[in-house]
C-alpha cells in the first residue's frame, strides 16, 4: 500500500510540474509588438514562418495531392512561379526568399486539422487551401490563431470571413455570366435553359448562379437534372434533358463529366449548347470521337486568356516564370493560374506588412482588411476589391469564353476575352456573401 501511495504521489507531482509549460498566462493580452505602422522593413523581427536573419518567409499550402487529386499539385507550382517573380530584383518581395510548403490533406478534414496544427507554427500564412470542407473545418482554428488564409474555394459563404482573403470569382459568378453570354451574345433569348448538376456542394453552387441569371434575364427555365459523383452513364440524364426540350445546358460537374455527357448527347441526337465551368476541362476532350460535338457545342467559361497569349500581361508573366522554375512544365489550362493568383494576393499582403515592419499574424490580418484592390494582370476576372470591410468585398466578373481546339497549346482556344456580364456583376454586388 505504501508503495502505491508513493507512486501516486510521484505521478501527481510529475504531472503538476509538467503542467503550465504549454499554456499562456491569462494576464498576457496577446497583443503583438511593433504594431504601430510605418516602422519600415528594418524593424522586422523573426516570427513563426519568418526568419529575419535570412529574410526567409515560409508559407503553407493545404492542397490534396494524392490519388485523384494529384493534378492539384500544379496549383502549388503556379504559386511558386509567382513567388519566384516577386522575389526577383524589382519584385515586391525583393531580397526575401519565399519557401512554399505543401501538406497533403487527402481532402479529409480529419487529416487536415492535425496537419494544420503540425505546420501552423512553421508558416506565416496559408497561401492556398483547397476544398470547402477543409476550409470550414479549419476556420475556428484560423480565428484562434489569427492565421490568414487564401483559399482556392469559390463558394460564396466563406468570402467575408476576416481570416480569409479570397481571389477570383465564385462558381456562381462564372455560370451567371455564361448564361447571359448565351442569351445575349449567341442569340438564344428564347431558348430553354437547363442545368445538369453534380450531386454535391459544387453542383449546388452552380445551380445558384444558373437560377439567378435565368431569373434576372427572364429566360425560359427547363429542368435541373442531377447525377451522382461516381457516375458513368449519362443516358437517363440526357434523355431527360432531351425530353424537356432543353437548348442550353449549364453543366455543373468536375472531371471527366463533359466527356461522358457529350458522348451520350451525340449518341442520343441531343442538340444543345453547353456551358462548362473551369473545372470541367481536360485535354482528352480535343482528341476523342466526341471532339466534334464538343468543339461545336460546348463553351468553357474560365478567367484569363489562352496559353501563349502574350498580349495579356499576367499570362506572359506566368509562362516566363514557369519556364524558369520548371523548364519541363507542360502547358495546362487553368490550374497553374489558380496558384499564380493566390500568390499575387499573398504577396500584396506580405508587401504591405513588410513595409509596415511587422510580419506578425495579427498585423497580416490588419493588412488584409485594408488591402483595397489587388490587380489580377488580366488573369482573374478583374481586379479584386477587398475594401476596409469584408462585407464590401467584390471580385471581378470578367469571364473569358473558350472553345475546345487542339491547335491551342492547352486545347482551349479563346473565343472572347473578359466578357463583361451585367448579371454576373450584379450577382457579385448583391448575392455574394449574402
Amino acid at each position: 500500500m505504501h508503495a502505491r501511495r508513493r507512486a501516486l504521489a510521484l505521478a501527481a507531482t510529475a504531472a503538476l510540474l509538467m503542467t503550465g509549460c504549454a499554456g499562456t498566462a491569462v494576464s498576457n493580452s496577446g497583443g503583438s509588438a511593433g504594431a504601430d505602422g510605418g516602422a519600415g522593413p528594418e524593424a522586422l523581427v523573426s516570427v513563426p514562418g519568418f526568419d529575419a536573419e535570412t529574410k526567409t518567409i515560409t508559407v503553407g499550402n493545404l492542397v490534396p495531392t494524392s490519388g485523384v487529386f494529384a493534378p492539384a499539385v500544379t496549383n502549388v507550382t503556379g504559386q511558386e512561379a509567382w513567388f519566384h517573380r516577386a522575389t526577383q530584383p524589382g519584385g515586391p518581395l525583393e531580397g526575401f526568399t519565399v519557401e512554399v510548403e505543401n501538406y497533403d490533406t487527402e481532402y479529409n478534414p480529419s487529416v487536415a486539422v492535425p496537419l494544420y496544427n503540425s505546420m501552423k507554427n512553421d508558416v506565416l500564412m496559408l497561401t492556398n487551401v483547397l476544398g470547402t470542407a477543409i476550409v470550414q473545418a479549419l476556420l475556428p482554428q484560423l480565428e484562434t490563431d489569427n492565421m490568414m488564409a487564401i483559399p482556392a474555394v469559390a463558394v460564396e459563404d466563406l468570402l467575408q470571413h476576416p481570416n480569409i482573403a479570397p481571389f477570383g470569382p465564385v462558381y456562381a459568378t462564372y455560370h451567371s455570366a455564361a448564361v447571359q453570354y448565351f442569351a445575349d451574345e449567341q442569340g438564344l433569348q428564347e431558348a430553354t435553359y437547363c442545368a445538369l448538376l453534380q450531386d454535391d456542394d459544387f453542383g449546388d453552387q452552380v445551380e445558384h448562379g444558373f437560377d439567378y441569371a435565368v431569373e434576372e434575364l427572364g429566360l425560359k427555365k427547363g429542368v435541373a437534372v442531377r447525377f451522382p459523383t461516381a457516375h458513368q452513364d449519362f443516358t437517363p440524364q440526357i434523355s431527360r434533358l432531351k425530353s424537356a426540350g432543353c437548348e442550353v445546358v449549364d453543366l455543373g460537374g468536375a472531371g471527366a463529366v463533359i466527356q461522358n455527357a457529350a458522348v451520350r448527347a451525340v449518341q442520343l441526337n441531343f442538340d444543345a449548347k453547353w456551358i462548362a465551368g473551369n473545372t470541367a476541362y481536360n485535354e482528352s476532350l480535343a482528341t476523342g470521337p466526341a471532339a466534334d460535338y464538343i468543339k461545336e457545342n460546348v463553351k468553357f467559361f474560365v478567367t484569363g486568356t489562352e496559353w501563349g497569349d502574350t498580349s495579356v500581361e499576367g499570362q506572359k508573366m506566368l509562362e516566363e516564370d514557369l519556364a524558369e522554375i520548371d523548364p519541363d512544365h507542360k502547358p495546362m489550362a487553368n490550374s497553374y493560374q489558380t496558384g499564380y493568383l493566390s500568390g499575387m494576393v499573398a504577396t500584396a499582403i506580405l508587401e504591405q506588412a513588410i513595409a509596415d515592419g511587422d510580419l506578425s499574424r495579427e498585423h497580416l490580418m490588419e493588412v488584409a482588411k485594408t488591402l483595397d484592390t489587388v490587380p489580377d494582370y488580366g488573369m482573374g476576372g478583374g481586379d479584386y476589391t477587398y475594401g476596409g470591410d469584408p462585407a464590401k468585398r467584390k471580385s471581378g466578373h470578367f469571364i473569358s469564353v473558350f472553345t475546345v481546339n487542339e491547335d491551342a497549346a492547352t486545347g482551349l482556344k479563346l473565343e472572347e476575352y473578359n466578357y463583361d456580364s451585367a448579371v454576373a456583376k450584379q450577382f457579385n454586388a448583391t448575392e455574394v456573401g449574402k
Partner: protein
Amino acid sequence: MAITETVKPVRTAHVQRERSRTKDESQLCVSKGQRIGLAVGFLLIFAVPLSVGNPFLISLGVTIGIYAIAAIGLNVLSGYAGQISLAQSVFVGVGAFAGVALAGLAELPLLVWLPATFIIGGLAAAIVAPLTLRLKGVFQIVLSLGLIFVGTYIFVNSTVFTGGNSGISASPALSLGFMDFGNLVVGGMAYGYQQGLFILVWLCVAASMIAVVNMHRTRFGRSMIAIREAETAAQIAGINTNGVKVKAFIIAGAFGGLAGGLLLAQLRYVQTHQFGINMGLELLIIAVVGGLGTTWGPVIGAAIISAIPVLATQYAEYIPFLQEDFSQSGEIGIPVGQVGLLIYGLALVLVMVFEPRGVSHWFKIGGEKLRSLGSGNRAVVDVRKPS
C-alpha cells in the same frame, strides 16, 4: 492505464486456490500495478495537454482519441461479438449531426448534448440491428455497405441538420459550468481549444475503455465472445444470441455517436461526405490492425492508422524512390502525394499477413516479456492430468 487481459499462466494448484479465493477478476484492476497504472493514466490525460506545447501532437491526439472511441464501439461489435460492419461511420455521422441539432441549433449545454449523441447513436443502431441478425459473412459486409449509401442519402436530404452537400458549422458548448474545456484556465494559465478538447476526448476514451472492460469481464462480455466462438453452444448455455447481438450493435452505434459528437467539437464543421465509405473502412482497419477483441487494440490502431497519412506527408522527403515533384514528364517514380496511400496500403497488407491478431498483440507479448524479466521466475504452464 494498464488494463490488460493477459491470460495468466497457471500456477500450482495450491497457490491457485489461495489466489482465487482472494482475488476478484471481474474487478477493473486486478493487481496493484494496474491500479497505479489507471491512476497515472488519468493524470496523464490532464498532464499531457497542459504540458505539451506542440499543437500538432495535441491535435493529432484529439483525432486519435475520437477515432479510438468509434473503434472501441466497433471492436465490441466485430471483435467481441464477431459481427462485421463497415457502417460504423454512419453512426459517427448520426452522432455528429445530432450534435449539430442539439449543441449547434438548440445550444444545449455539454452535459446534455454529448450524452445525447451517445444515446442517439445507440438508437439509430437499434433500428438497424434487427436487419443484420440473419446475415453472415459476405452478406453482412454488403448490408453494412448498403447502410453507408442509404445513410448518405438520408444525411444529404436532411438539410436542416446536415446542411445538405455543403455541410454545416456549429460551435458546441464545452463547458461543465465550473470548467470550460473550450477555454481552459488552470492555475492562471489559459490553454487552447484543442488542449481542452484533448482532456475531454481522452476522458471519454478512458470512460469508454473502462465501460468496455467492465462489460468484457462480466456476463454480457462473455456472452458476446461465446457467440463469436460457437453460436449454437452459446444458445445451449441459455444465451439469447439475437438479443446479445442487437445489444452489441447498439453499443457500437452509441460509441460511434459519441465519437461523432466529439468530432463535431473538434472540427466545428461537419459534412455528409465525411461519413462515407472511407471513414467506415478506416474504422474497421483501425479495429483490425490494432487487434480485434483486445482492450487496447482500438487505441493502438487509431494511433497508427490516423498518424500514418499525417506523418507520411510530414516526412515524405526522407522516404527513398520519391519523385521530387509531380511532373508529367512520364518518368516512373512515386509522386510525393502518393506516399500516404502507399504506406497505408502496405501497412494494412503487412500487418494482416504477418500478425492478423493485430499490433496490440506485439505490445502484449512485449509486456509479458518485461513482466517475466521483472519477476525473474517464469511461471510454468502445468496441464498435468488430474490425479
